[in-house]
């Protein structure tokens, strides 16, 4: 009996039953559809077993969009609950579960895959490589992320969602106070996808250090690649901390260890320290690649080289170092004394300087440029003032004495959404629009795109700026309700309205994809934006080998120089190209991980042990496997290239442009 109780949802509601039915119907629909259209083989060959970084990137992209909707649905439910005082839409337990899943899903299962999507799609192309350093590991990273996300997402229909906040502070997250299996899901799902992220970090550091095209020195790397490199260095240093913390937390919950409990010598503050030693760098893992995307986009649509390339690089290096020296600002109020607070107050504010340098560099890049207001550029231009506001409120929070008043209030919620939405989400949507033609062969509709931008920007301002005020008026975060007498009502209603505008914007994104898929022309060439960096020197859509001949690089905007200054990018003869074989192992292994994770959540030891053995068997088999990949022969490459026709015979093109 007790066994079945654990699978029950702690607070069933019509919304959850409806979701259960919806999930079942969609799953059945997918299975039936795949069978009916005989697509199982295609799915297996082209996607589930692929090791192609571009396809993996696309899968990351689709998962991230999916999770954006999951997290967005949670967000709008929270805003609806808070829109009026004493609302009864959600009860306390349900609200707690929703803000917890919202936070986790948005940071770990939406923003992370989104940046990994862009890294996968773009980095190999920008450095003139044919793939990442370890293609099969890359597939494993993706599938681990994916099953981690799925494990997290089934929590609300099987056993209950985590309810201790995305920070999961102990002892609240311990068995005594968080009694459902929700927090087990938190520990295990994040662990599984976190291992994937760590491997991505190692993979991309290696790729960027080892696989650059001839002539591309570090200081000639395009800015997005730089940002991806630094972000991945941070991943490599930060994620092991999370792994250890989650192992300890899991041990506390499942095996009665006492690492973070408040009795038997456990230290709740240790969890807070571990969490934020990972957690603060994590926000820079997200924001730096976003900065990289903005750099590419702003420079393209200003028709100018990036101003202050070197200072851009150095400021990112400095930010990455400082990001590890500030974690304590998340608990200034833990009673650590004036000296500690002073030190972390100063290190935190110091980050504003390199960040300010970047803002000025973007401004100077536009200065004397020729600015085209395309959709990606609108996001980038909107980003600058909004992110500046988010940044300066961060400096306000960094003044630790004043933070005693902001901490845990809506002011903080306003601040971090103010950096993360214009910073990360805008960048993702800008990047999505910018790179869409490269990978899908058609442009997204500009008119719908611009409308989306305005909805999301205005919605954002209305949704979050009122929170600065209610925060200063004493509205604590994570309260599921408040009384009429507090006077928070009208401003929260405004927030809800803003949230609704953002929800419309997200629907418009889907509509745009569908509309453009139907209506956009397909003859867009390979460089529709008149861009500057190397990824645009490939065909559209990009052939599996990326470059028939590896490019020769002599500046940080090699492609621009080939277009405008007649540099020849591709020299020499086409040769046989070595490619890695597809493999089903990453997918299968991740599925086994899923089973292991699920079994651990419910402490089902027999399947857990069997699954863990399965994981080791996969690893053992792999270490004895001989797989040398295969060759695409020069003849075949030439045929493929010929099919793309005159579009990208690079020498012809540079001649053509010099005639103009």
């Amino acid at each position, binding site marked *: 009996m007790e066994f079945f109780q654990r699978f029950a949802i702690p607070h069933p509601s019509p919304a959850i039953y409806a979701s259960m039915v919806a999930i079942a119907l969609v799953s059945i629909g997918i299975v039936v559809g795949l069978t009916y259209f005989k697509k199982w083989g295609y799915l297996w060959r082209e996607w589930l077993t692929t090791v192609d970084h571009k396809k993996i990137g696309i899968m990351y992209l689709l998962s991230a969009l999916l999770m954006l909707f999951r997290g967005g649905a949670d967000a709008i439910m929270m805003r609806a609950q808070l829109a009026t005082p004493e609302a009864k839409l959600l009860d306390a337990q349900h609200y707690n579960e929703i803000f917890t899943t919202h936070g986790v899903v948005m940071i770990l299962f939406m923003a992370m895959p989104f940046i990994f999507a862009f890294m996968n799609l773009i980095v190999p192309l920008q450095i003139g490589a044919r793939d990442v350093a370890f293609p099969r590991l890359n597939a494993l990273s993706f599938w681990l992320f994916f099953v981690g996300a799925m494990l997290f997402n089934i929590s609300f229909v099987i056993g209950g969602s985590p309810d201790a906040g995305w920070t999961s502070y102990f002892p609240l997250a311990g068995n005594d106070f968080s009694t459902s299996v929700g927090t087990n899901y938190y520990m295990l799902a994040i662990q599984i996808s976190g291992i994937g992220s760590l491997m991505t970090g190692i993979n991309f550091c290696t790729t960027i250090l080892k696989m650059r095209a001839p002539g591309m020195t570090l200081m000639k790397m395009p800015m997005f690649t730089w940002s991806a490199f630094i972000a991945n260095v941070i991943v490599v240093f930060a994620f092991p901390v999370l792994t250890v913390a989650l192992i300890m937390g899991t041990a506390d919950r499942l095996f009665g260890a006492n690492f973070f409990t408040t009795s038997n010598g456990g230290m709740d503050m240790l969890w807070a320290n571990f969490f934020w030693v990972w957690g603060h760098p994590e926000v820079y893992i997200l924001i730096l690649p976003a900065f990289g995307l903005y750099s590419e986009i702003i420079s393209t649509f200003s028709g100018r080289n990036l*101003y*202050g390339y070197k200072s851009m690089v150095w400021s990112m290096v400095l930010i990455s170092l400082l990001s590890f020296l500030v974690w304590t600002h998340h608990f200034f109020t833990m009673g650590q004394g004036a000296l500690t607070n*002073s030190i972390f107050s100063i290190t935190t504010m110091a980050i504003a300087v390199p960040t300010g340098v970047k803002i000025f560099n973007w*401004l100077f890049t536009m200065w004397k440029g020729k600015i*085209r207001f395309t959709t990606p550029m609108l996001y980038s231009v909107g980003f600058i003032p909004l992110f500046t506001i988010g940044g300066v409120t961060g400096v306000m929070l960094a003044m630790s004495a004043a933070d005693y008043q902001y901490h845990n209030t809506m002011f903080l919620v306003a601040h971090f959404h103010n950096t993360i939405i214009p910073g990360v989400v805008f960048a993702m949507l800008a990047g999505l629009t910018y790179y869409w033609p490269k990978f899908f062969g058609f442009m997204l509709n500009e008119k719908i795109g611009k409308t989306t931008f305005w909805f999301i920007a205005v919605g954002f301002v209305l949704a979050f700026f009122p929170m600065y005020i209610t925060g200063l008026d004493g509205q604590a975060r994570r*309260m599921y309700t408040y009384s009429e007498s507090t006077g928070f009502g009208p401003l929260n209603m405004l927030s809800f309205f803003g949230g609704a505008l953002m929800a419309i914007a997200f629907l418009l994104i889907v509509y745009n994809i569908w509309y453009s898929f139907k209506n956009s022309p397909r003859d867009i060439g390979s460089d529709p934006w008149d861009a500057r960096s190397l990824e645009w020197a490939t065909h559209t859509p990009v052939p599996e080998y990326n470059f028939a001949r590896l490019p020769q690089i002599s500046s940080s905007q090699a492609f621009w120089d080939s277009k405008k200054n007649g540099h020849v990018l591709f020299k020499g003869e086409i040769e046989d190209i070595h490619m890695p074989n597809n493999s089903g192992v990453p997918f299968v292994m991740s599925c086994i991980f899923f089973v292991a994770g699920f079994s651990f959540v419910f402490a089902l030891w027999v399947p857990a042990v069997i699954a863990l053995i399965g994981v080791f068997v996969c690893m053992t088999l792999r270490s004895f496997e001989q797989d040398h990949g295969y060759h695409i022969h020069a003849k075949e490459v030439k045929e493929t290239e010929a099919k793309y026709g005159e579009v990208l015979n690079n020498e012809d093109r540079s001649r053509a442009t010099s005639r103009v």
Partner: protein
Amino acid sequence: MMALVLILSGCEPLLVLDPKGPQAERQASDIMLSIGIMSFIVIVVMVILAVILFKYRASKLPDDYEPPHIEGNHIVEAICVGIPVLIVAYLSFVSVQSNYIVESAPVGYEEQEPLVVYASSSDWKWHFSYPEQGIETVNYLYVPTDRPLEFKLYSYGPITSFWIPQLGGQKYAMADMVTTLHLAADEPGEMMGRNANFSGKGFAENAFNVTAMSQADFDEWVQEVHETAEPLTESEFQELLEPGHLGQMTFTGTHLEFSPAPEHNHDSETTETEADHSEHSSHDESETNEETDHSGH
């Protein structure tokens, strides 16, 4: 940002910006100072952006305009680094100064003996023990004006955060240590206090009322409590600790006698400034305290 400033100074002041004591006053003035400087930065960025967007948009420029290649300029970059460095340095200076101010006895109250109140949280209530007066209240707090207040914070359960916005910013209450928060009230009145750190289902209602009154009124109240309230027994206190909500309650005696605070401070600094308090005898003792302390849940 400007709109924000306007609203802040509007008719009904926001709690944090309507201080009733020196600590909150210092915090409010830091906040206003930073809002001022930060608005300036935001406005500068916005103006530069607007000018650039207006001047250099493609539709305005001749077709044959070719943007120049510019690598950077040392003077410009020195300014872009220098000004933020100056601003951050100034704010750091203010911040460090304020840290020491809010962590010590309130300005103007250094000479007086503080009123010590042990504020402990349990799911989802607040227990206030007045050891000097020998009384204890639940979910409401009476404090004298014009006297420094020293709150000793700890928790019977998850981490909570003790916050009275109009007297000063919050600090965590944890199960395994005691943190100290120095406050003072300048004028009599009613205020809102609450737990600001999420602590589970009953978190939203985890609030308490604060009433500041003259020392004479306060003494009178203490007198009255001694005359009218029941003593707090150990078994009754254990009952109070059960998860749930309670109204306001008053007792004579405090739970500190049978369920002492986990008095070991991790932060050496605050301990030093309070060397005159006898509770900080030794660390060994606190180990045993911790055990008894957790038999409660």
